[in-house]
C-alpha cells in the first residue's frame, strides 16, 4: 500500500512542473511581451520549480529545459548553448579542479590544521574564521567567483579534516554547515567592500547617472554596520538552520597543533600548489591593473598543476560531478540570459516597479527591495540583474520620493546578499554546491532563509544607518 502511494506521490511531483510549464505556455502572451519570451519563461519556471519541489535534480531539469527551448524554436541553438563558452562558468569549473589539487597535495590539510589550531575550539569558531578570512581578503579580489576559488579549498579541507564526508549521513552535516558558511560569507563580504565583486562597480557607475558619487570610502561607511551585523549573526543563524552535529571540539586545537608539527616541512606537491595558488591569487588581485583575464589566470594555474603532475589526467577523469555542474550551470546561465535579452526581465521589473507609483515612499522602498531580491530567483548572474534592473528600480523609487542614496545603496547591497537565494544565484555558490555536502532541498530552503535574514538585517539596521550616513 505504501509503495504505490509513494510512487504515485513521485509521479505527481514530477507532473507538477510539466503542468505548470504547459499552463504558462498556453496562457495568452501578456501585452508587451513576445511569444518567445513568454514561452522561455514557462520553460525556465518549470525547470526551477521542478528542482525546488525535488522532482528532478538540477542537471536533469536544466537538460530538459534547454532541449525544450531549442526544439520548440523558442531560442536559437547558438544562444542556448552560449553558456558553455562563458568565462564565469569556466572559471567556476577550473576553480573546482584547482581545489582538488589543494586537497590532493596535502596543502589543504595543512591549512585546515592551521585554522583549527587557531579557531578549533568550536564549530561556530570555525564558521567565524571563514567569515572573517573572507571579509579580510575580499577588497583585493574584483571577482567573488575567484574569491570562492580561494575559499573553497580551505573550507573543503576544514570539512574533510574534521572527518566530514559528503556520502556519510552522520558526518555530512558538519561539512554542509561549513560549505553554506562559505557561500553566505561570500555574499555578505561582497556587500562590505566596493571592490569585492564585479557587480558593485557596475552599480556605482549606473548610480552616477542618478547624481550619486560613491567611492571606496563612502561605500565602506554605508555598508559597515549592516554587513558587520550580518557577519556576526549569520554563523549562529546557519547553525540553527543547518545543525552541524558537532558543537564543541575541546581537544581539537591541541590535536591540530600536534598534527601540524608532525606534518613536517612542505612536500614537493605542496610547494608547487602553494606557488601556483599564490600566482593565481596575485593574478586575480592584479587582473584589472594588468588587464588579465580572470579565467585565463585560472587556466594557467590548472595547466601548471597538470604539467607538474600534481594533478593527473586520472584525477580529472574522476571529476564527474564537475562535468554535471558545468552542464547545468552553463544551461541555466544561458537561459536566464536569454530571458533578459528577450526583454522579460526588463518587462517584469518595469511593470512591478511602476505599479508602486503613488505609494508612500517608505512602503515603496521596502517593496522595491523585497521585489528586487525575489526577482533573483530568475537570474543566474548578479551583474546581469544589476545591469537589467538596478537603474529601473532607482528611477521608480526616486520618483515616489525614496531618497536616492538610501535606495541605491540598499539595492546594491541586496545585489550581493541575494546570491544565496538559489544555488545558481551567484557563480561563486556553484563551487560549494559541487562539493556534494549540501542537498538540493537544503540549498533552496537555507538559501531562501539566509537571504531573508540578510534582508531583515539590511532593512531594519541598514535603513536607519543609511539615512544617517548616505548622501
Amino acid at each position: 500500500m505504501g509503495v504505490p502511494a509513494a510512487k504515485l506521490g513521485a509521479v505527481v511531483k514530477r507532473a507538477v512542473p510539466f503542468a505548470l510549464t504547459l499552463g504558462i505556455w498556453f496562457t495568452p502572451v501578456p501585452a508587451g511581451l513576445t511569444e518567445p519570451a513568454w514561452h522561455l519563461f514557462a520553460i525556465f519556471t518549470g525547470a526551477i520549480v521542478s528542482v525546488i519541489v525535488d522532482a528532478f535534480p538540477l542537471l536533469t531539469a536544466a537538460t530538459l529545459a534547454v532541449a525544450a527551448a531549442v526544439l520548440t524554436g523558442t531560442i536559437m541553438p547558438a544562444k542556448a548553448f552560449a553558456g558553455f563558452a562563458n568565462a564565469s562558468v569556466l572559471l567556476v569549473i577550473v576553480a573546482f579542479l584547482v581545489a582538488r589539487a589543494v586537497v590532493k597535495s596535502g596543502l589543504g590539510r595543512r591549512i585546515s590544521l592551521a585554522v583549527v589550531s587557531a579557531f578549533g575550539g568550536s564549530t561556530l569558531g570555525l564558521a567565524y574564521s571563514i567569515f572573517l578570512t573572507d571579509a579580510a581578503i575580499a577588497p583585493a579580489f574584483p571577482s567573488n567567483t575567484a574569491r570562492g576559488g580561494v575559499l573553497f579549498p580551505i573550507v573543503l579541507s576544514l570539512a574533510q579534516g574534521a572527518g566530514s564526508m559528503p556520502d556519510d549521513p552522520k558526518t555530512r552535516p558538519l561539512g554542509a554547515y561549513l560549505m553554506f558558511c562559505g557561500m553566505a560569507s561570500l555574499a555578505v563580504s561582497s556587500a562590505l567592500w566596493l571592490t569585492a565583486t564585479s557587480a558593485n562597480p557596475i552599480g556605482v557607475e549606473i548610480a552616477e547617472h542618478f547624481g550619486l558619487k560613491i567611492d571606496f570610502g563612502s561605500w565602506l561607511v554605508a555598508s559597515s554596520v549592516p554587513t558587520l551585523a550580518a557577519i556576526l549573526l549569520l554563523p549562529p543563524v546557519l547553525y540553527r538552520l543547518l545543525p552541524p552535529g558537532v558543537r564543541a571540539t575541546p581537544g581539537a586545537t591541541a590535536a591540530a597543533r600536534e598534527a601540524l608539527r608532525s606534518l613536517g616541512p612542505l612536500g614537493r606537491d605542496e610547494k608547487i600548489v602553494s606557488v601556483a595558488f599564490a600566482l593565481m591569487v596575485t593574478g586575480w588581485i592584479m587582473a584589472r591593473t594588468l588587464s588579465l583575464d580572470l579565467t585565463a589566470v585560472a587556466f594557467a594555474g590548472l595547466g601548471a598543476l597538470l604539467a607538474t603532475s600534481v594533478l593527473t589526467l586520472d584525477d580529472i577523469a574522476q571529476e564527474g560531478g564537475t562535468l554535471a555542474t558545468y552542464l547545468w550551470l552553463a544551461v541555466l546561465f544561458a537561459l536566464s540570459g536569454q530571458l533578459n535579452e528577450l526583454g522579460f526581465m526588463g518587462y517584469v521589473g518595469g511593470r512591478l516597479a511602476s505599479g508602486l507609483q503613488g505609494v508612500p515612499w517608505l512602503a515603496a522602498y521596502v517593496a522595491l527591495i523585497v521585489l528586487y531580491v525575489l526577482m533573483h530567483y530568475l537570474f543566474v548572474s548578479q551583474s546581469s540583474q544589476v545591469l537589467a534592473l538596478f537603474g529601473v528600480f532607482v528611477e521608480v523609487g526616486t520618483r515616489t520620493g525614496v531618497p536616492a542614496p538610501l535606495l541605491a545603496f540598499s539595492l546594491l547591497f541586496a545585489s550581493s546578499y541575494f546570491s544565496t537565494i538559489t544555488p545558481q544565484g551567484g557563480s561563486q555558490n556553484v563551487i560549494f554546491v559541487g562539493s556534494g555536502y549540501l542537498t538540493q532541498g537544503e540549498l533552496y530552503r537555507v538559501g531562501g532563509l539566509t537571504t531573508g535574514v540578510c534582508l531583515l538585517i539590511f532593512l531594519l539596521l541598514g535603513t536607519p544607518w543609511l539615512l544617517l550616513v548616505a548622501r
Partner: protein
Amino acid sequence: MRRACIRAVRSMVTGGSGYGMLRWRSRLARKAPWWLAPAALVLWSACSGPARGPEVALAPGESRAFTGTWSASGSRNTLRLGPDHRASIVSLTGSLLLTGSRGLGIGFQAEVIGMSDNLTGGQGHCVWTDERGDQIFSELRGGPLGSGSAFVGTITGGTGRYAGLTGEYRFRWKYVIDTEDGVISGRTDDLVGRAQAPASTPAGKPAG
C-alpha cells in the same frame, strides 16, 4: 487551531519534523522556500496585465503620441581606427514599456542593430515586436552610443496592425554601461514620439 498554525509555520521555517497531518507539509517545506508562493504571486501580478493591451488599432490617418522607457542590453564589438577613433557594431535587445492610455499598447520587445562611430555618431535599424508578433520598423540616428547621447528614430513601416505606420520618436540614453566582457547595457526614460497610420491600408482595410 492557532497552535497548529504556529507549528506549521515553525516547521516550514526550521524544516524540522512535523506532527501528524502537518508532516507532509514540513517535508514540502524542506524542499520549497516559504516565500516561493509570494514570489510566484508577485511575478504573476507583473505578468497578469491584459493579454491584449489597450486598443492599439489606429483608424486610417489617425496620429497618436506615445511615451515610454526602454531598457536594453547586448554586445558591442569595437574596431580601433587610430588612437582617438573607434567604430563599433552594436546589437541590443530589451523591453520597451509604453505609458499613456492611448499610445501604441503596453510595450514591445525592442531589437536594434547598429553602428556607432565616436567621431561621426551612430545609426541603426530597430524592430519593435508586440505580443501578437506584429512589428514596427524604424531607423535610428544620433550621437555615438554612450551615456547622454540623443537619438531620433524614424518609423518606416510595420507588419500586421502596424502596416504602413509612419512617425518619429526621440530619446536620450540616460546611461550606457560597457562591461569588461563586451556586454553593453543602457536605459532611457524619456522616449517620446508620434505614430501615424496610413490614410488607407494597401488592402483597403483599417490598420489593426
